[in-house]
């Protein structure tokens, strides 16, 4: 079998997939993102505790280590953690936690633990991993009130990650609609839209975001603030996409294949959706994928500065806000763990976007990314 024949036989979708698979980093990133989105979606199940449960026996406690080897019983298949032994050092006033070997809490998978309301739909108590009632499990340590960072990271992921997706969906709708209008209609409409975009883009984004978020009424419910922030973030982001869409429309309008389609009697909508949009799908996908981490970072930045989401909503930005001062770096560095997740997710989205851009253009000449 020679490859030219094959190229004609396979569908463009399959080709896209094959091309994407060659970009191993993108593939790995994709898998990572699927996993973390699933975890966030089912975070009630994956988290050990609810985000506001406190463990007064563990204030500012460091992450617990998972053990397989018991000094007495030797290796055992069921992993376990030790409880904390707390002393407040009289010299340093630091809460010092050491492993208390007399308290051993075996990890239990799919076992009942703290009760929760799944998606506010029904009550349940089964967790992916938990420990018996008498014990506690803090894989990422705890904060000033003894709240479990691991659970809070997962609940925060739900907010931060969904906010990225919703924000980008809104961006795409706005961008394609407004950019399409400008490109297709041209003339006066195009002119007005272009100038508006320029004005919007000329304003420094962070101060504008801050001003808009500060304008959100303080009595809004947490959910209202959440959607408010989404609208605010999309409000700026659509301009870039609109420009690209408009430019593409202008350029492609006069291309031979469009002229050919028109001469063959295709209608306007058919031309737009069958011929124009697919030809710059790769752009939209790339822009969208690359915009998601931008959204996540923006939310994190706003919440970090105290003008975005607010407690009791838990987002990564809200979590990082508690880690704002330098005391954290010296004394309680595990409060920075949410930052690690922000970094990982942003990198993964960028790599994924990279792979998707190449793959979305399967007939592109070069093999390199």
């Amino acid at each position, binding site marked *: 079998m020679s490859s030219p024949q094959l190229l004609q036989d396979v569908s463009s979708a399959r080709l896209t997939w094959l091309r994407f698979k060659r970009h191993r980093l993108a593939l790995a990133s994709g898998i990572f993102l699927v996993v973390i989105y699933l975890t966030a979606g089912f975070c009630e199940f994956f988290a050990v505790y609810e985000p*506001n449960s*406190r463990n*007064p026996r563990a*204030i500012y406690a460091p992450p617990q280590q998972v053990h397989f080897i018991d000094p007495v019983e030797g290796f055992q298949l069921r992993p376990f953690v030790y409880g904390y032994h707390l*002393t*407040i050092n*009289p*010299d*340093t*006033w*630091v*809460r010092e936690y050491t492993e208390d070997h007399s308290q051993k809490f075996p990890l239990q998978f799919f076992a009942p633990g703290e009760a929760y309301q799944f998606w506010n739909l029904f009550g349940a108590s089964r967790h992916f991993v938990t420990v018996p009632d008498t014990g506690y499990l803090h894989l990422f340590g705890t904060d*000033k*009130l*003894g709240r479990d960072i691991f659970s809070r990271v997962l609940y925060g992921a739900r907010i931060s990650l969904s906010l990225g997706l919703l924000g980008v969906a809104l961006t795409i709708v706005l961008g394609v609609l407004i950019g399409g209008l400008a490109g297709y209609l041209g003339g006066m409409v195009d002119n007005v839209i272009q100038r508006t975009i320029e004005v919007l883009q000329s304003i420094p984004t962070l101060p504008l975001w801050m001003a808009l978020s500060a304008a959100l009424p*303080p009595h809004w419910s947490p959910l209202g603030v959440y959607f408010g922030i989404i609208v605010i973030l999309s409000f700026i982001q659509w301009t870039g996409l609109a420009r690209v869409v408009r430019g593409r429309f202008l350029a492609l309008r006069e291309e031979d294949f469009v002229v050919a389609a028109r001469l063959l009697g295709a209608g306007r909508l058919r031309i737009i959706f069958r011929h124009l949009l697919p030809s710059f799908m790769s752009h939209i996908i790339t822009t969208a994928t690359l915009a998601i981490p931008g959204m996540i970072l923006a939310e994190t930045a706003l919440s970090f500065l105290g003008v975005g989401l607010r407690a009791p909503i838990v987002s990564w930005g809200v979590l990082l806000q508690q880690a704002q*001062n*330098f*005391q954290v770096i*010296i*004394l309680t560095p595990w409060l920075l763990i949410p930052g690690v997740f922000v970094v990982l997710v942003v990198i993964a989205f960028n790599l994924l976007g990279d792979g998707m851009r190449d793959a979305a253009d399967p007939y592109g000449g070069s093999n390199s990314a």
Partner: protein
Amino acid sequence: MRQGVRTTTASTSAVVNCCHFTMVALGLLASFGTTAAEIDPASWPAAWHQPMATASELGLTHFQQAPMLAEQVAAGTLPPLQQRLPTDPVVLQPINNIGQYGGTARIFRSDWDKLNNLEGPLTVDPSAAKILPNVIERWEYSDNNQVLTLHIREGLKWSDGSAVTAADFIFYHQHVTLNTELNPITAPQWVGSQITAIDDLSFRYEFPQPFPLLINIMAQIGDYMLAPSAFMQQFHPAFVDRTQLLASIYAQGYVSWMSYFNAILFWTRNSQPLAPTLRPYQMVERTPIAEYYSRNPYYWKVDPEGNQLPYIDKIRAEVIDNADVMAAKASTGQVDFAAFEMKTQDFPLFKLGEKTAGIKVLVWHRIHGSDVIIMPNLTIDDSRLRTLFRDRRFRRALSVAINRDEMNSVIYFGRGTPRQATVIPTSRFYAQEFAQAFAQYDPAQANSWLDEMGLIDVDGDGLRNFADGEALTITLEYIDFETPKNISLELVVSYWRAVGIDLRLKEVDQALQYNRATGNLMQMTAWHADRSTDILFPWQPQWYVPMHIGWEEAHWNSWSIYYLSGGARGEQPPAEIIQLQDWWQELTRSAEPARVTELGRNILRSSAENVWTIGTVGLAPQPVIVSGRLHNVPAQGYWGWDNRWTMAYHPATWYLTQ
């Protein structure tokens, strides 16, 4: 020197004894081992508890001055020391040893008056329980307590060399306190008062009613009772031509003579003219980044060897507005003294600085009866909440639902005292049962009281509803100010939620706090229970008696307004509240010590039984950061407004080494 050392040794053993006793008695702090929140008075020199000795009493005849001043005397720009000191200088006992002269102390602006504390007519002892002479040497009340005669120490001089006389008090009273341009509303204590000179150094205040508490005021805010009259008269229209005065003031950009006058008197100008002072340091200059102070060459206190105080030459008070930066600078030894802006939660950071930067972290105790008190508004307009808040069972239930031991360990490292808002143990009015009333953690009891009141969870969301099924939520508005209110209230939210009470927190800004608290609009607010000592409790028992309105309280404003307006506005309180006000009225006028104590206890007992406000943890640890080169700072002290932070611990005796 020898005397100082002996005192220290004695006090160390006493501290140990005290701790043992408290540990056995309470058994609460056992896991933390070393301290209790009560301070042993023997940790300070015995002399601090008594009226300050004078040179003649100690046989001191020879005095020395700082090299900086000796140079000026030699150059002829300053009179010799003997002419500058009063006839019989006051002798201050340093806590550890005789200091050495020199150096510039680096501090933050908010600590300027902690190092350069006021010199009022009277002062307080280190336990904040006793009033001691200072500028005023002795005083007598008339039999009916309506006339107070005072005698100024002889030969005292302001920092410009002019004499301190009765005219300085009379000027302040007649031309500042009672001047309707400077003070449009005369403070209640001064209404109807008169002041008369007897001779150069003696004068008397007269009041239409008995006023035995005037000496408390003279000790606590006595800096608002005298001013260098000869100097300040230059800027007062009663003494100079108003048109000319205004012309020169407007030219300098001030909008009124009052603002100019106050800027000079209270040192809020950037440069001279600035009022002379009796404090250890005179302000020299102010820039956007720092304030500069230099020693007062006429300071009137000396150490036991006859060295004129203060020891330290100059102060540079840096202006920084970021609390994190201040904590970082303090913990790395970049300032010599820091406390006002230092936060309890940063203790581990400061302790780290003890190892790396050679600083000393002293654990003082905030003088607040409760570091955070929660005030349900008993006169709120919402009739359902009002009925609820006025039900004693509800307040008691909220109180016992709070786990104070846990708060103490989570927020205060176990070094505070779980208690209700009441006076501190050094007070004559103190009783242990007041501090511990309904302060035990008992959620079962809380639940049973709430059930008994008919507050049942009807919709199964885990939160109680009003008897008619409406959702019961309470909003607490507060500012996160001075004490750790944020984290305390977050914990309270979770304790109350556990007994089914839905408390919502709302942090507001300062202007909103003022408007909503004084406007009787808040359902609940929180503050810190200062004014819990013998100095201020008898005069301002605002947590326990409705007699005051302000931004810090919102628990019974309508009753306070009714009281303050003589019944013209507000709402008439029930009989038991009027009883409280009557007790307090009598307390402020009674001269009979036993009766005063009884009345104060009546008020506090009512507060303990009725839980008018809900206390949490009191006598909280306050970090006092001292650099490795600053000495003679007491290891323990009470920190707060009642005793003006450091006033009783004599910062003039602190000194720097290189």
